[in-house]
């Protein structure tokens, strides 16, 4: 498998999020929180991290992934990890 496509990472993260949280694409915004805005619990978020790692070929460090609260933060983290 080739390395992750860093440039296309943001749309890819949004695509994976939509697979786990049933929201229309136009609704999701970087400032939205996984808990309050997307009404997800901690288990759903853990599953989302697994989805991202499998589908996008990155490994997110536990402590950094655990600190993520908003969509934008997750996109930033995935992009940063993919670049490193």
């Amino acid at each position, binding site marked *: 498998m080739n390395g992750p496509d860093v440039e296309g990472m943001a749309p890819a993260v949004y695509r994976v999020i939509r697979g786990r949280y049933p929201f229309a694409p136009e609704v999701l915004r970087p400032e939205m929180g996984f808990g309050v805005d997307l009404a997800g619990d*901690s*288990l759903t*978020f*853990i*599953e989302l*991290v*697994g989805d991202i790692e499998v589908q996008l070929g990155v490994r997110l460090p*536990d*402590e950094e*992934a*655990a*600190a993520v609260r908003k969509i934008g933060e997750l996109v930033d983290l995935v992009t940063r990890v993919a670049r490193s």
Partner: protein
Amino acid sequence: MWSFFKRTALRCLRRGSTASGDWQQQSAARVERLRASGVRIGVDCVVLTESFSTEPWLVELGNRVAVAGGVKFLTHDGAAHFLRRERPDAQSLGRIVVGDDCFVGEDCLLLAGTRIGSGSIVGAGSVVRGPVPDNSLVVGNPGRVVGRASLALARMRLSPDTLDTFRLPPEERRRVIEAHFGLGIAARETSIQEGRR
């Protein structure tokens, strides 16, 4: 067994709560009893269940394992009952092995042949069978791996609802937790007054 439970329950009721030291002592005594019955139990384990099936010697807990109340270890498949029409002594059996540093949540059922990898967390009420990789978070029935246990713990560590209340005296513990959730004495009195209206 029942009298032991009753004694413990009465003691807790008298105190108004189960203090952490209390159940740790109960766990230590239970671990010794279970070891005597053949369960292989590592060091620094906390075990709050007595249900180790009819073949307790097929169960092995690693080091620093915590098993919550209501958990059942089932080391045989009772459906072998039907085999006994042709093989009167048939039993279908399996070992259950829980690796080091695992947590098995309240009311889980671990079936014969289960092998839980080190550092895993099994969510409350899960029904688990077969192999589970190290560092797994397992939930549901049938239990499935939904992610890394280490990520779940890291998330829990940062959660605003994770409080440092475990070893507080019961009354103080209640006060701190109620205050955290906005359920202090004032809130209780307001709620009682509203109930009277």
